[in-house]
């Protein structure tokens, strides 16, 4: 997530799709998650808005793994 918010399972994604799982990452100290979006919008780097209990919160598509231990 680009904003302070935790995505959770079932939250709608603006433009279609939804979060299938999400939590807060203590290592990255941001909300992270996985979800479905329309294939046309599924490129890494794309920004999207997730409906977090009625408020649109900005997220960004990243490549897996979301977190990779350094060293």
């Amino acid at each position, binding site marked *: 997530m680009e904003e*302070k*918010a*935790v995505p*959770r399972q079932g939250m709608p994604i603006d433009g279609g799709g939804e979060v299938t799982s999400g*939590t*807060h990452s*203590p290592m990255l100290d941001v*909300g992270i998650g996985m979800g479905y979006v329309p294939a046309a919008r599924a490129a890494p780097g794309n920004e999207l808005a997730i409906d977090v*209990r009625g408020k649109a919160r900005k997220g960004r598509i990243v490549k897996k793994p979301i977190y990779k231990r350094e060293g």
Partner: protein
Amino acid sequence: MAAAESYPDDLKYHRDHDWARVEGDEAVLGITWFAQDALGELVHFEAPTVGSTVEKDTSYGEVESVKAVSDVTAPLSGEVLAVNQAVVDAPETVNEDPYRSGWLIRVRLTDPSEIDSLLDVESYKQVLAEQ
């Protein structure tokens, strides 16, 4: 470091596990040790905006932990004068010190008579005993 269980006797309590420290016509609000313990480590505080109003017995924000999200109930009505930015930046502050550095918001009371409806520490402990 999680705080040890405590319920200061200079606070007023709401049965939804919120506290108020009344200071003249203002009050500082937060959640009790019991609330933070039930939620676990907090990762997000969805705060109201300064200048907005909060209404007694209704939600004025959300606290989210790794495992759960909960509304925060206002024990008193008022206008939001300040939001604790330290908690917005580091929500675990609430776990470490729920009554001092872990306060959530400061309000100017719109109806100080509401204070009479809140619980003192003994009554709140009674609520906890019934959980």
